[in-house]
């Protein structure tokens, strides 16, 4: 058994890996970031959010909501898109990339919850949503979706654990429940992705008309469907390098076919809405908002839409990555534009995240990356993949 197989199998962890600079630097950086973020979080718990952030009464939400929450949830969309493809549409060929996609989604949601525990004023009351209901509130829906979908993702992820622990009965229960679980998960994802857009429909006077639309929930959902496969491409590319595995370019190219469709529908809805309300001229005013909007739409939507509709791009691992990064960049920009830049504030108000806010965000990101690495090394994450690869090799 070669070292590579030992790592892939995830069983024989005692096999000595050659000590290189990267083997020390990467874990060191990750642990350092997590430790620093933990220290900053402690300052927040003692002295308040104001002590570590530049948030203020005019900018009640900042980096953590725009990036950790809104982008975090959007970028976790790979899980529901892939699970829907495999289980509902019966596209069994995507099964090899299912587990990493579900894991990325699950960790993404856990990271959102951790960020909320820093951002909420009273994190110890996060469970109040269960006993105090306001069904008029979009935030109520958001909260419930986070709770329920994190649970669903945990169950979808759990077979890896049961296999590793050889708890066959547990694995079988999940296997029996997997279809209802995936249906529930996709429904919750749809509700959650769209409700994050609905949040901002309550601010029709504050939100710039380039982004404000009664159709914000639909737009958030469409962009999530587009960014889901893009995240699977990014995650597969990185883990193929880190864990020295093959890259399923054909599978990724197949999944990427969703992207131009979702982006085209999104573009149609977005431009159609701006034309219908005769607000399209706002895009050419040459101010900060209009420039951000144009970059978001051209670089983050139109270019990747064209790229992913070309078979040549979908067959090349390099181009797939380029296109995926554009989609991800476009969605990240969109979430920041809607939740931070596009919202009008009282005169004289300003906000730029403090270094400690960045530390919290980076620390949570480091936590997610570390957890992914630990799972990849210790649980049969690519187990099914190794199997499929062997079959491909035999052909």
């Amino acid at each position: 058994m070669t070292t590579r197989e030992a790592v892939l199998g995830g069983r024989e962890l005692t096999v000595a890996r050659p000590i290189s600079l990267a083997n020390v630097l990467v874990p060191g950086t990750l642990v350092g970031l997590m430790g620093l973020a933990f220290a900053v979080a402690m300052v927040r718990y003692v002295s308040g959010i104001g002590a570590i952030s530049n948030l203020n009464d005019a900018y009640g939400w900042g980096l953590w909501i725009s990036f950790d929450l809104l982008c975090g949830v959007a970028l976790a969309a790979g899980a529901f898109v892939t699970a829907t493809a495999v289980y509902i549409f019966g596209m069994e060929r995507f099964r090899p990339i299912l587990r990493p996609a579900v894991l990325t989604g699950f960790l993404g949601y856990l990271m959102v919850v951790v960020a909320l525990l820093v951002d909420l004023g009273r994190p110890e009351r996060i469970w109040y949503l269960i006993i105090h209901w306001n069904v008029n509130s979009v935030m109520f829906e958001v909260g419930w979706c986070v709770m329920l979908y994190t649970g669903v993702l945990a169950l979808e992820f759990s077979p890896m654990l049961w296999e590793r622990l050889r708890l066959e009965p547990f694995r079988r229960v999940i296997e029996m429940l997997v279809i209802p679980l995936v249906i529930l998960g996709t429904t919750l994802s749809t509700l959650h992705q769209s409700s994050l857009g609905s949040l901002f429909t309550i601010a029709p006077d504050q939100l710039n008309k380039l982004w404000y639309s009664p159709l914000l929930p639909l737009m958030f959902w469409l962009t999530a469907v587009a960014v889901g496969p893009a995240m699977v491409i990014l995650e597969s590319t990185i883990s193929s390098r880190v864990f020295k595995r093959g890259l399923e370019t054909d599978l990724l190219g197949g999944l990427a076919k969703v992207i131009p469709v979702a982006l085209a529908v999104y573009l149609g809805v977005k431009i159609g809405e701006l034309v219908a309300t005769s607000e399209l001229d706002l895009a050419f005013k040459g101010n900060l908002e209009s420039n951000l909007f144009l970059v978001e739409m051209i670089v983050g939507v139109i270019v990747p839409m064209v790229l992913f509709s070309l078979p040549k791009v979908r067959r090349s691992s390099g181009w797939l990555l380029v296109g995926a990064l554009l989609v991800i960049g476009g969605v990240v920009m969109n979430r920041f534009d809607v939740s931070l830049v596009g919202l009008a504030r009282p005169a004289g108000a300003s906000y730029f995240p403090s270094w400690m806010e960045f530390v919290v965000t980076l620390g949570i990101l480091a936590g997610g990356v570390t957890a992914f690495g630990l799972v990849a090394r210790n649980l049969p994450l690519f187990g099914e993949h190794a199997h499929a690869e062997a079959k491909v090799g035999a052909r």
Partner: protein
Amino acid sequence: MAFAMLFDATKCTACRGCQVACKQWNDLPGEVTTHTGSYTHPAQLSADTWLLIEFHEVENDNGFTWGFRRRACMHCLEPACASACPVGALQKTNEGPVVYNEDRCIGCRYCMVACPFDVPTFTWDRGLMEGAVIRKCKFCVDRLGSGLEPACAKTCPSGALKFGERDELIAEAHARIEAQPAKYVPHVYGEEEVGGTSILYVSHVPFEELGMKSLGSEPVQQRSEQIMEKATPAVALGMLLGLGGLYWVVKRRNQRSAKKASATRGDREASS
């Protein structure tokens, strides 16, 4: 009986007695502030300053005139904050005040996004022990309950702030405008804005000059409440049924094509 207050900018002298009375009654500490170049002081509302008199220099034919604005919670008839609060910590009372329950607030700050008047403020300096929550003007709901008027209205020496019943105050506001049409802008701010507010304004300068946005007469949460009432349950049910149906259809089709494939293979094997 719905209580309200009428603020008449033409009568305000910016003595800030209301500001001080508010701090005293609600036991709010003073703030360390910096000089901003404006007489408005402190510069903004905060968790410790629920009421503020803003100083606006308004240009006119004679050079300039002062426009003073009372800035505090507007106590909307249909408050966006109460609609937005996920745990129902903010509530509209029948008597007029929009009150909040500090013991329920989770500190998510969505009310700050939702409020069209940028009113709710947050306790940024509170850690886990004190618990960081939202704060804002409560319309002295604890005084109203004892038959007293709000501390700010009680204090106002110039008659700029009048406490009373909303219908009566609206009638009085229109009467004042009609009596002196040359003096007043012909608009009662808060009568219609975002579905109506419990704090009403009349002014000698355009309301935009006082930093008051021109807002529609529909509550801002109209769209999000429609989404919650209609779209969300429809999408949830549609997705559950649609995905279930889709799964069933795809499975049957796959089974059929598999059967067909094995049947043709069987035929071929039989014929060979």
